[in-house]
């Protein structure tokens, strides 16, 4: 187990170095002069030179990378071209908001997906099961940004139940209840596709486990059906669900790009799109870096959890 942990950590470090090289390279992969693109065609030569110097573009690439990495480790991601403030500060402030949204969506998608999947599997072939499968296929095809708009129209504009934009009300906003009210619609919009995926996987994992000998034995012993379902069948689908957690978190972090823009949720996704539209490269690099790093770390945690929870893997 220790050896595995060490190996996995080393691999993670290597991956993170790779990620940092890709993010650093983004600025250099731009066709044309990045300084010119950021400042626009009317920029004067003096300002261009100053920006090139600020970005370190007047030095050899490896020097630039080392400098960039050293600054990064000190928590310095450069200065946003448009906002004229520290990218690191901006990213960190928004990161919390994105994590909150992603976490809420994880809760919604897993609670909903597991429930639907388990019930579908238990009542295989029933009307509920068939409807659930159909809806899950539909959910997978749903453009999340459009579903988000539909939610706003129905629940915010027509029924006036929940707010449809931002994170806090303009008047007396910011409290826990207020934040939760703002969180509901974006979290549901973000959760709908993962929910469909999880429901499908849970159902097929449950069906697979139900055919195992130990489930039959448990039934033959005369254990109540509820005990068999929870202790023998469902517990053994958890391994599949842990793997899903890692995969879906990546999806949620990325899917937040759309949802945050529809709901004006002040997170990383909104910042990324604004950054691209205003061609603010340091800001985009910061956003991509933090999301990719989170994804890599979550995948490592998933791997470790997977080994930990599956005795067959742990003991071999």
């Amino acid at each position, binding site marked *: 187990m220790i050896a595995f942990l060490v190996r996995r950590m080393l691999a993670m470090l290597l991956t993170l170095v790779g990620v940092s090289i890709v993010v650093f390279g983004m600025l250099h992969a731009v066709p044309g002069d990045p300084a010119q693109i950021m400042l626009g065609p009317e920029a004067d030569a003096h300002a261009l030179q100053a920006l090139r110097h600020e970005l370190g573009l007047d030095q050899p690439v490896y020097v630039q990378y080392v400098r960039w990495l050293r600054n990064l480790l000190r928590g310095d991601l450069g200065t946003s071209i448009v906002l004229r403030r520290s990218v690191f500060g901006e990213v960190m402030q928004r990161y919390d908001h994105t994590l909150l949204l992603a976490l809420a969506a994880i809760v919604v998608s897993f609670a909903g997906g597991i429930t639907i999947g388990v019930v579908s599997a238990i009542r295989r072939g029933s009307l509920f099961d068939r409807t659930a499968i159909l809806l899950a296929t539909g959910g997978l*095809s749903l453009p999340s940004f459009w579903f988000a708009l539909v939610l706003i129209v129905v629940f915010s504009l027509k029924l006036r139940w929940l707010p449809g934009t931002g994170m806090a009300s303009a008047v007396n906003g910011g409290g826990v209840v207020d934040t939760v009210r703002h969180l509901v619609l974006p979290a549901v919009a973000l959760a709908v596709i993962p929910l469909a995926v999880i429901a499908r996987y849970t159902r097929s994992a449950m069906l697979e486990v139900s055919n195992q000998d130990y489930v039959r034995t448990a039934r033959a012993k005369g254990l109540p059906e509820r005990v068999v379902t929870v202790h023998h069948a469902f517990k053994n689908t958890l391994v599949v669900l842990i793997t899903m957690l890692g995969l879906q978190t*990546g999806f949620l972090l*990325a899917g937040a790009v759309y949802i945050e823009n529809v709901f004006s949720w002040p997170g990383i996704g909104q910042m990324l799109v604004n950054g691209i539209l205003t061609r603010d490269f340091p800001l985009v690099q910061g956003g991509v870096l933090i999301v*990719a790093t989170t994804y890599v770390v979550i995948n490592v945690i998933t791997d470790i959890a997977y080994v930990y929870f599956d005795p067959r893997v742990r003991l071999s």
Partner: protein
Amino acid sequence: MEVAERIGPRAGRPSGAWRKWLRRDPVAVGAIAVLVGIMAAAASAPVLPLANPDTPHFGERLLAPFAGGFVLGTDQLGRDVLSRLVWGARVSLVVGAAASLIASTCGSMAGMIAGLAGGKLDNVLMRLIDLMLSFPYVILTIALVAVLGPGLFNAMIAIAVANVSYFARNIRGNVLTLLGQGYVEASRAVGARTGRLLLRHILPNLVPPLLVLVSMNIGWMITETAGLSFLGLGAQPPQADWGSMLGDGRQFVTVDPYVTLIPGVAILLLVLALNILGDALRDLLDPRLRGR
């Protein structure tokens, strides 16, 4: 040589299987109908009796469907929504198909090279693929658009590149499985060269899995293209695809929800049809995964 070739399975199945499949799966038939309908409408847009999709009618803005002789109403500039939908379908379909073609071609090539070459080259290619996979898919696309700049063509390239890893990984796996098959070994044992192995045994047997991979993936690509256009990172005005129609109509959602509702339903129908067809095709060509 002769024997080795004769015992190798042939790609494809007799046409009877297709007919039986169609009868058994009416949902898939419906999906085909939707798909053919959308493609036919898109293809015949220039000859259909439609209003000009870009002509504004300022007196007739944001009309509901069937009002003022516009079947699906008008948008914020008074343009005919039905006509824009049909013309937009051309953009969405072409961009989705092109991205899929580029991604599957490049990905399959990389996967085949890695699988056949093995050793160091395989290792290097797979580490590169792993590096791509360490970014969440949408974030990778967004990062590529950031580098290339917003625009429909750049969005297409970004989506294609982000999907290369998916094809490369799967095709490599398939190549390795095929190389371990008895008939490939037999063919090699009697002296067939790599080129002949490739043409005779590997390529034909890669066609069914590749079809499945493409059909499972193309719906995603179309949604993704629409998503980038929706965010303003894809199609730029006056050009419009379904995603940008949705994005432009978004500000007027309070006044006229139809402007966003209609392109959204169109995307949903198209992607749903493609996904149902993808599932059906997978069941047909890869029976091991049936019912998963």
